[in-house]
């Protein structure tokens, strides 16, 4: 009778420790990166996010589900310019930044961490010749 509780107690304690750690954890489930075609709409800015991180990046706009979304694109090297169009691979985080109100961007702007970015240089469509 005493053997079973003695064997179960460590397991229960470990289980409780895991549950507690999971509740306290800031970790979020892994989100796959997404590709977006974005346009930079601000100069490089150094800001403090809602979660207290200091990051550098740009305000950028992209279209998703027929809506124009504004995000704060985080790049560790601010190498682009206002107006550049990029194909960006990255992911939205739970973090956000608050910037001085602009014409369309007010309130909290979600943070988008960039893994990869290349210039989006549109190519001319191939139009078949008239017969």
């Amino acid at each position: 009778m005493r053997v079973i509780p003695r064997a179960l107690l460590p397991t229960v304690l470990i289980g409780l420790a895991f549950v507690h750690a999971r509740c306290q954890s800031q970790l979020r489930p892994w989100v796959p990166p997404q590709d977006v075609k974005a346009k930079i709409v601000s100069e490089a800015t150094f800001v403090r996010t809602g979660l207290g991180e200091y990051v550098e990046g740009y305000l950028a706009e992209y279209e998703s589900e027929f809506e124009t979304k504004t995000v704060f694109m985080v790049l560790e090297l601010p190498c682009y310019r206002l107006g550049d169009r990029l194909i960006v691979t990255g992911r939205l985080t739970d973090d956000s930044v608050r910037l001085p109100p602009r014409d369309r961007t007010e309130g909290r702007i979600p943070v988008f961490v960039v893994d990869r970015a290349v210039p989006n240089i549109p190519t001319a469509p191939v139009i078949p010749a008239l017969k």
Partner: protein
Amino acid sequence: MKIRRALGPLTVALLAGFLAACRSGPVDAWGSRARTMLLTSGPAEISLSSSRVPGYWAQQVEDGQEFFLYTRARSFEKGSRVRVEGPFGFVTASVYLEDKGLYMRYYRLHVLVVWRMAGDDGPSDRGSAPREEANHARHP
């Protein structure tokens, strides 16, 4: 008993040797021999653990291996041949490759910490390389 006593130190020595082999990287990485590099960029920056690291992109003349030379020197120009000394290591950094306009957050590359850097008068561009010497980063 005698065999066990004889095998003990041998096993310990073998294990020590094995551990040392596992821990160390390529021997060359810690050598500070001089290398001849061709600078493939002007003064540039990469980001290592959220810290900006100044330097140059370069290609080792011997084998075309790409390096980032960590140095505060800014006087060399793209296309210069230089002779550099210092240790190097393999890192993952955020980089911007200017020729492609490409930004990468996780880019694996060799970073060489420059102890000494001087223009190299190679046979092909004798007289055109700068003679300035950048001698710093004594304690990387």
